[in-house]
């Protein structure tokens, strides 16, 4: 039996807030190959939006820096999303994942990681202060009856 070939894409873009919409839409376009339901597609868009917004707001607070988004399809019909920045990093990753915790003031809710965790199957957060942060998320897309 042939397994579906892996496919991947890498996108680099500057940390401008106008790229939040671009990144989540690009991720949804790529994920469309797995024939997701609308709800699965929206979950992917929401998680990407959170991760990219974090990089824009927190990694590069006073500068514009590079954000890299890698998307990869796995043979088990899952989508892996890796969002990386080379910004200030996070000193305490456990604290960053705590619901309601934010260093972003009143404009942020502190719910980004909570939403990424509840919309994705797995989430790994690696960060080195002064070097940058990498968020790796994975979400399996259900195979629908009648699909390829």
């Amino acid at each position: 039996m042939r397994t579906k070939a892996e496919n991947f894409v890498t996108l680099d873009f500057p940390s401008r807030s106008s790229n939040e919409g671009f990144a989540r839409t690009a991720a949804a376009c790529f994920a469309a190959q797995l024939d997701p339901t609308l709800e699965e597609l929206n979950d992917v868009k929401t998680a990407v939006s959170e991760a990219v917004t974090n990089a824009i707001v927190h990694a590069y607070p006073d500068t514009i820096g590079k954000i890299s988004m890698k998307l990869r399809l796995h043979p088990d019909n899952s989508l892996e999303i890796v969002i990386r920045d080379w910004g200030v990093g996070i000193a305490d990753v456990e604290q960053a994942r705590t619901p309601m915790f934010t260093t972003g003031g009143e404009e942020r809710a502190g719910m980004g990681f909570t939403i990424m965790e509840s919309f994705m199957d797995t989430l790994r957060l690696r960060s080195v202060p002064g070097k940058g942060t990498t968020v790796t998320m994975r979400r399996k897309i259900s195979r629908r009856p009648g699909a390829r």
Partner: protein
Amino acid sequence: MAVSCICDQRALTATLSGELDHHAAKHIMTQLDGQIDRELPRQLTIDMGAVTFTDSSGIAVLLRAHRQMCRLEGELRVVNVPSQAKRVFQAAGLGRIIRFE
């Protein structure tokens, strides 16, 4: 993202449309703050029927509106929440704080 507001007898209705992300949130917060300060409403209704996408930035917008209305001793209700936004708000447990109808 657009905000349009109608006020009738200190009942303010704010209709949001488009994508409610961090890029749009600042503009919405500024618009809502201005309307609330001008009208001093007893009731604020946020209509999300035309919102096509929301992330946690939408949570921050609603929490801010909630705080503003608490300060005025008024009430906030949020109506016509699309299913994508509903999932985001549920994941955050926002229903414990904000009245959704």
